[in-house]
């Protein structure tokens, strides 16, 4: 991911100062929490479902190599062409080669977080291709030149006035309106044209079934079905962890996904694709390509605790319930995946050196873990990665990157003082005398900018016990 000047603190300050953003987020996240709660009204049933969802994902990950081989075999038998990419660059090159093979200039895209991870739009636009996002939220942010701020609702940070102004400015002959239905109608009209003309359709994959070689897509708008049915070529891009063992695994995951994401019993469409257009069939793509992307995932699999990150089904519930995300929004996170899941996934994919700051974006309130449909212990992984930032014997890429000489010395000093009673007594005495004199600048500045300065007691507890004794019943 291109993100060289990622300054999390600066992003956070800017987001917190943006009153409009905070109003938009507060309303939207509150509403999404309510919808989920209304749908999962029976806690026992929900718990049963979550146990199933978690087990299905854990089982799939524990057999990942064989399931991927089976998926590849089944897809190939069904006529789907399977590609493997280790990195985003390789994945982009594969997409490019398919476009070139068909002499295609126009791509229509259904919503795909993996394509965001690849920065595919920029890659193809730079090479002169016409690339169009067709999910309404994605379309809005493409027009605005932004990145998605939420996994499920990518334009959730914008309100209707902002969308109205954007459409008015960017779509020719479009008068300003702030009526949502009218805005939707404008998008429908503009994008129908794109569906009609699209030469290659690209989509993500919500889950792929190894047993039958079936790609499953969940959506409400119908743009995903358009992209995977109208153009003669369909490219599906998928993180390699998204495979499940069998069809019977699909219904519980679907219930969990739509319920957790949008509080729906089921989405408008559940689209199961198993092969390209067969002889005699009249529509559907003549070629279907499945692109499986690693991009750091296989390394995450190697640690039993960190592996649980890969159970994620991308519902976004942890974002909606996170006290940090709901105040700063997705853009502040600086990378494609945001919120609690982004805070654990991104540092593992990009390395702690680049993205290790993200794990600070948590109050460890545990809300994310409580709502996670597949029971990922997000706070536990956040704490683990916080430690790894300073742990030279860690496992995650870039572990120990936060360690500095000054900090090492401070802790060594701490250790020394606490081992020797004399030094300890001297230290607490000094703290009592000099502590109140510490200036609110230098090392204390970051702390005191939002908190009051620590108050040191004049006398240490040891001294008081010596003088006053201990009251005992």
């Amino acid at each position: 991911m291109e993100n060289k000047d990622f300054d999390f603190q600066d992003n956070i300050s800017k987001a917190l100062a943006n009153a409009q953003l905070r109003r938009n987020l507060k309303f939207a996240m509150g509403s999404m929490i309510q919808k989920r709660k209304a749908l999962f009204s029976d806690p026992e049933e929900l718990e049963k479902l979550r146990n199933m969802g978690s087990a299905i994902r854990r089982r799939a990950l524990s057999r990942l190599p064989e399931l991927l081989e089976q998926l590849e075999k089944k897809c190939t038998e069904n006529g789907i062409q399977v590609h493997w990419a280790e990195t985003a660059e390789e994945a982009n090159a594969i997409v490019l080669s398919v476009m070139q093979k068909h002499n295609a200039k126009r791509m229509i895209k259904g919503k795909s977080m993996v394509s965001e991870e690849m920065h595919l739009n920029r890659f193809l636009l730079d090479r002169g291709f016409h690339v169009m996002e067709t999910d309404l939220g994605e379309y809005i942010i493409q027009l605005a030149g932004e990145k998605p701020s939420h996994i499920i609702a990518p334009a959730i940070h914008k309100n209707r006035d902002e969308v109205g102004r954007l459409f008015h400015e960017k779509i020719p002959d479009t008068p300003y309106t702030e009526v949502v239905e009218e805005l939707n109608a404008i998008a429908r009209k503009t994008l129908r044209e794109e569906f009609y003309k699209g030469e290659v359709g690209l989509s993500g994959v919500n889950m792929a079934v190894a047993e039958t070689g079936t790609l499953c897509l969940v959506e409400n708008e119908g743009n995903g079905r358009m992209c995977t049915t109208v153009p003669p070529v369909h490219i599906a891009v998928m993180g390699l962890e998204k495979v499940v063992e069998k069809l019977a695994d699909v219904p519980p995951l679907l219930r969990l996904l739509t319920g957790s994401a949008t509080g729906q019993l089921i989405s408008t469409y559940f689209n199961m694709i198993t092969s390209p257009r067969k002889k005699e069939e009249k529509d559907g793509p003549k070629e279907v390509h499945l692109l499986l992307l690693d991009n750091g995932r296989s390394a995450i699999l190697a640690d039993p605790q960190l592996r649980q990150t890969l159970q994620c089904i991308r519902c976004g519930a942890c974002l909606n319930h996170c006290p940090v995300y709901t105040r700063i929004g997705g853009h502040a996170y600086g990378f494609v995946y945001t919120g609690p899941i982004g805070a654990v996934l991104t540092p593992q994919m990009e390395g702690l050196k680049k993205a290790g700051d993200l794990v600070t974006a948590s109050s460890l309130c545990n809300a994310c873990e409580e709502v996670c449909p597949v029971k990922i212990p997000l706070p536990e992984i956040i704490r683990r990665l916080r430690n790894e930032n300073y742990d030279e014997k860690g496992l995650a890429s870039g572990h120990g990157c936060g360690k500095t000489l000054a900090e090492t010395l401070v802790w060594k000093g701490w250790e020394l003082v606490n081992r020797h009673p004399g030094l300890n007594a001297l230290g607490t005495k000094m703290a009592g005398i000099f502590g109140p004199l510490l200036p609110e600048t230098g090392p204390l500045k970051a702390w005191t900018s939002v908190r009051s300065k620590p108050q040191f007691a004049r006398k240490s507890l040891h001294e008081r016990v010596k003088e006053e004794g201990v009251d005992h019943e």
Partner: protein
Amino acid sequence: MNNAARERIFARLRQAVRQGAVSVPKPESLTIPQWNQKEKVEKLKKHMEAVRAEVHVVPSANWTETLKEIVRKRNLSTLLYAPETEIGNALQSAWNTDNSGLPALCVYEGEIEGFKEKLFGMDAAVTSTLGGIAETGALILRPDEKEPRLMSLVPPVHIAVLEAGKIYSTFAEAMEKGAWAKGMPTNALLISGPSKTADIELVLAFGIHGPKELIVLVLE
């Protein structure tokens, strides 16, 4: 295909999967509720109406009359249908008896490449369904050469015919009873309502890219 990348990925995965081995719990599976046909029809209707599908429960003997009323009311001029199917034949004979004020019956001619312009201009399409799902409210479709995939997507009105006896309690039951694992078609679909979006301020609005209206005729 980049075989070197594939080999490297698999080498890493095989090692990682051994290294990070975890226990996999075996939870109890979800029970399939035993609802009778009447209950299943009611549930499907309730759930689908909640997401703005229009559901009519009609006697199977004269469903084409209900269909005629529906299309007349909407002043449609074209209706895409699949000839040589059970419902296609029924439609044809119903139209032959009396087609006043009714849309012209149109056929999906040849492959999409040659039919695209006409398809994008159609007012409505009528399709069969493989069944329904009571628990969540959804139709099951398995488009084929007679009823291509885009019939249920491109025209602004989609009319679906569902036999009440083919409503399953849950999606899992439909898969199990239909032996889906033995072989999947090119495309299988669940459809629960007209296309919708809530991407602007979470305001729910119907009719974005797919059909603006979904009309279900449940034949009893």
